[in-house]
C-alpha cells in the first residue's frame, strides 16, 4: 500500500512537472498595445513588435545590427538595381498554406499601397517572382538600403487576405479608420497565433505548432499580453509576480529594480536621438552659427543624461548613434560654459535675448524635465527661455506650425541608417519631396542637401559611410541643432525569463526565441 502511494505520488508529481514543462506562459506588460493586427496599417513600434510575433520578415536585424536570414534563407545582389531573395522551403502560414514567392510579391504590392509605408518603399519599382521560391526586389536606381527595408517585408498569406469579408468589403483593404478584416484577423508565418484580443486590455497568443523555425530555442507556449499604462503599476505588477516581463521601465524605478533579487533589468542605448531644433525664421539670432554653437556649449548633456535620465540615456554630440554608418566617435558632446559666453559676446549677444521653447510632456522619457533643464542652462548665457510643455496630442500640431523658437524632437531612423536623420531633420524643407518634414529649425545648407541626396544612390558601403560621416561633421561644426542624448531602452523580467538573448536596440523583442526556465 505504501509502495502504491509512493508510486502514485511520484507519478502525480511527474505529471505535474510534465505539465509545467509543457505549458510555459509568458505574462507580459507593455506601455501600449497595437491598434491593429494589420502589419501595414500603421508604421509604429507597436505594429512592428506585433508583426514579429504573428509574421516573420524576410530578414531581420541581430542584436549587433547585422542581418539574420529569416524567411529568406539567402540573398544576393544580381545587378545594381536587383537583389534576389531565396525563400525557405515548406514554410507554413497559420492558415495551413505554404509560403511561396507570390505571397512575397503580393505583400510588397500591398506595402506600396499603404499610406504609412509607401514612402519607405518609394525607391523600389517592383517585386518579381522568379520561380516559386525566388523573389527579386527591383529598385528604381541604385539603392544602398535594400536589405534594411527587406526587414519590413513580413509576407502575408495572399489567399487568406483575398476575397471579401462577410460585409462585402475586400479583405486586403488597409483601413486607417474603422474596422477592417486585416486589422482583426491575421495569418502569417510567425511563431504565435492570436487566440483572444480585447484592444487596450488583453492580447492572448499561443504558439503556432507548425512554426518553421525548429531550431529556435523558444519554449513559450502562450503569451498573455496586457498593456499597463501607468509606469509605477507596471513595475509593481512585476515585483508582485503578476507579470513576468515589462517594458519600458521608468527612470525613477531603475535603482529599485536593480536591487530586486526577483528580477533582471536590462537597458541599452536605442537609436532614438533627442534633440532641439533652433528656428532661424522665428529667431534671427539663430541665423548666426556662433549663437547656435554657444548654445551647444552651454548645454551640459552629460549632466542631463546622468541626473535627469538617471543613466537611461547616452549624451550625444551628433545624430547618428554608434553602430550607424554616419556615426563619428570623434564628435563628442561639447560643454564649456566659458566658451559659450565668449561666443555669445563675439556674436554681439552678450546681454542675450528671449526665446520661446516647446516640448511634449508624455512623448519621450522625462521630456518635460529635460526641457526645463535645458532652459535653465541656456539662462546662464542670458538666453531667457519661455518654456511651454504639453501632451503629445497637442504638441504635434504646434510642431507642425513651427510654433516656438526652440522645439524638441526625438527621432529614430526607420531605415536604421543615418541618411534618414538628415532627410527628415536637417535637409531644407521641401513639401513636394517630403524632405525636412521635421526640420522645425528651417535650417538650410545646400551642401548638406547635396551630400544627403548623393548617399541615396551610393551602393559602395565604405564610400557612402564616408559621405555620411562628412555630413555629420558639417552639422557638428555648424551647430545645426542641439543634440542631447540617445534614449535608452529598458526591460525587466523575472529571473527565470531569459530576456537577455531576445531584446535589441531596435526595440523588437523576438519573443519567438524567448526561453523561460
Amino acid at each position, binding site marked *: 500500500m505504501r509502495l502504491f502511494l509512493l508510486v502514485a505520488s511520484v507519478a502525480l508529481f511527474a505529471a505535474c512537472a510534465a505539465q509545467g514543462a509543457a505549458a510555459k506562459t509568458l505574462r507580459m506588460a507593455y506601455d501600449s498595445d497595437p491598434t491593429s493586427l494589420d502589419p501595414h496599417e500603421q508604421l509604429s513600434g507597436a505594429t512592428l513588435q506585433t508583426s514579429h510575433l504573428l509574421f516573420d520578415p524576410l530578414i531581420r536585424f541581430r542584436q549587433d545590427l547585422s542581418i539574420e536570414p529569416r524567411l529568406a534563407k539567402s540573398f544576393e545582389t544580381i545587378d545594381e538595381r536587383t537583389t534576389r531573395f531565396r525563400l525557405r522551403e515548406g514554410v507554413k502560414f497559420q492558415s495551413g498554406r505554404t509560403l511561396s514567392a507570390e505571397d512575397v510579391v503580393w505583400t510588397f504590392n500591398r506595402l506600396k499601397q499603404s499610406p504609412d509605408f509607401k514612402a519607405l518603399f518609394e525607391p523600389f519599382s517592383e517585386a518579381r517572382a522568379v520561380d516559386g521560391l525566388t523573389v527579386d526586389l527591383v529598385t528604381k536606381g541604385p539603392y544602398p538600403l535594400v536589405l534594411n527595408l527587406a526587414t519590413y517585408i513580413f509576407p502575408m498569406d495572399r489567399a487568406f487576405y483575398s476575397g471579401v469579408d462577410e460585409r462585402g468589403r475586400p479583405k486586403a483593404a488597409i483601413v486607417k479608420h474603422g*474596422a477592417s478584416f486585416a486589422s482583426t484577423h491575421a495569418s502569417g508565418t510567425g511563431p504565435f497565433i492570436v487566440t483572444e484580443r480585447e484592444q487596450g486590455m488583453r492580447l492572448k497568443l499561443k504558439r503556432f505548432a507548425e512554426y518553421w523555425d525548429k531550431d529556435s530555442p523558444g519554449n513559450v507556449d502562450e503569451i498573455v499580453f*496586457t498593456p499597463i499604462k501607468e509606469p509605477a503599476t507596471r513595475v509593481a505588477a512585476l515585483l508582485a509576480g503578476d507579470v513576468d516581463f515589462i517594458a519600458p521601465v521608468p527612470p525613477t524605478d531603475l535603482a529599485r529594480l536593480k536591487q530586486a533579487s526577483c528580477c533582471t533589468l536590462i537597458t541599452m542605448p536605442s537609436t532614438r536621438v533627442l534633440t532641439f531644433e533652433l528656428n532661424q525664421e522665428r529667431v534671427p539670432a539663430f541665423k548666426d552659427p556662433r549663437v547656435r554653437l554657444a548654445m551647444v556649449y552651454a548645454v551640459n548633456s552629460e549632466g542631463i543624461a546622468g541626473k535627469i535620465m538617471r543613466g537611461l540615456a547616452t549624451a550625444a554630440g551628433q545624430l547618428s548613434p554608434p553602430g550607424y554608418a554616419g556615426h563619428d566617435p570623434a564628435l563628442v558632446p561639447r560643454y564649456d560654459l566659458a566658451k559659450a559666453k565668449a561666443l555669445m559676446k563675439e556674436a554681439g549677444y552678450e546681454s542675450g535675448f528671449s526665446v520661446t521653447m516647446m516640448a511634449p510632456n508624455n512623448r519621450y522619457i522625462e521630456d518635460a524635465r529635460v526641457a526645463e533643464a535645458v532652459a535653465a542652462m541656456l539662462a546662464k548665457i542670458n538666453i531667457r527661455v519661455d518654456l511651454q510643455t504639453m501632451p503629445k496630442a497637442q504638441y504635434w500640431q504646434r510642431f507642425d506650425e513651427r510654433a516656438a523658437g526652440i522645439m524638441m524632437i526625438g527621432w529614430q531612423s526607420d531605415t536604421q541608417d543615418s541618411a534618414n536623420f538628415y532627410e527628415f531633420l536637417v535637409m531644407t524643407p521641401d513639401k513636394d519631396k517630403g524632405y525636412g518634414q521635421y526640420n522645425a529649425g528651417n535650417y538650410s545648407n545646400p551642401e548638406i542637401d547635396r551630400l544627403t541626396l548623393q548617399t541615396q544612390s551610393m551602393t559602395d558601403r565604405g564610400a557612402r559611410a564616408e559621405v555620411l560621416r562628412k555630413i555629420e561633421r558639417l552639422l557638428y561644426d555648424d551647430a545645426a541643432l542641439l543634440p542631447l542624448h540617445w534614449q535608452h531602452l529598458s526591460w525587466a523580467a523575472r529571473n527565470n525569463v531569459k530576456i537577455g538573448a531576445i531584446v535589441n536596440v531596435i526595440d523588437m523583442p523576438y519573443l519567438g526565441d524567448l526561453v523561460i526556465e
Partner: protein
Amino acid sequence: MLAILIVAFAVRASLGDPLREIMGEAVPEAERAELRHKLGLDAPWPVQLARYLGGAVRGDLGTSTIYKRPTLEIILAKFPASFELVLGASLIVLLLAVPAGIYCAVRPRALGARLILSLSVLGISIPVFLTGIFLITIFSVWLGWLPAFGRGETVRLGPWETGLLTRDGLAHLILPALTLSSIMLPLFIRLVRGAMLDELGHDYVRTALAKGASPLRVWLLHALRNALLPLAAVGGLQVGTLIAYTLLTETVFQWSGMGFLFLEAVTRADIPLITTYLVFVGLLFVVTNTLVDIVSLMLDPRVDLEGTR
C-alpha cells in the same frame, strides 16, 4: 446635453490631431491631409457638429479612431467595469463611514473618535494616485495578498461583463475600490458625524433616552434615520465626483473602465470617443441626480409620493 456637445465640438481643434496617432511619424504630410479630408476632420466645427447630430439621429455617434469601433458600443462595453468599481467604493464608504460617523458623534471625546477624524484628514489630503500606489506596494508587492492590476477573471451575463461573481474578480476589486473610496470616506464620516450630532441634540433623543430606551436603539432607529436624509442628498451628488475620480483610480490599476478609456482617448486625441464620453457622462449625471431626488423623497416621511394624506 446640447450645451455639452457644442462645447465639445468647439474645443475640438485644441484637443490635438488624431491623425498623429493613427499614422506613423514619418508619413508625408500629403498622405495625412488626404486622410484628414476623408475623415471630415478638415471641416469647420459647426459643420462637424451638424454631421455628428445627423449621425446621432440614426444612432451613429461616430467611430473611435484608436479602437475602430462605434464609440457608443465601446463605452457601453466599459460601463460595467466602472459601475462595479463605483459600487464597490460606495459599499466601502457606506460600511465604514456610517459606523465610524456614529461612533464619532456619540463619543466625540474618545481617543478612537479623534484618531478616526485625524486619519480621515490624512485620507483627504493624499492624492488618489498616491493612495493607489501605496496600496499596491503594501498589499501586492510586500504582502503579496492582492493582485496589482486589472479586473481578473470576469463572467459574461449577456452584455454585462461582471467581475463580482468570481473570487478572482472580487480580489481584483478590493484595492481599486478602497482607493476610490478613500476620497469619499473622510467627507462622509464628517457628514454622518455632523448630522448625527445635530440629531442627538434634539429633544426627542433626550426624551427617548430619559424614558429608558436602549441608547443603541435610539441612535440607530431614531437619530440615524433622520440623519440619513441630508446624507442621501449630498451622497447622490457625490456620485458624480466619484465618476470623475474613477479616471485616476482606473489608470493606476489598469482597470478597464470608462475613466481609463477616456484618459486614453484624451492622450491619443481620439476626438469621437471623447465627445461620446462627455455626452454619456452628462446623461449619467442627469440620471443619478433624478434618482437621488426620488430616493430622498422616499426617505422623507413628510413627503407622500402617492399623494394620500
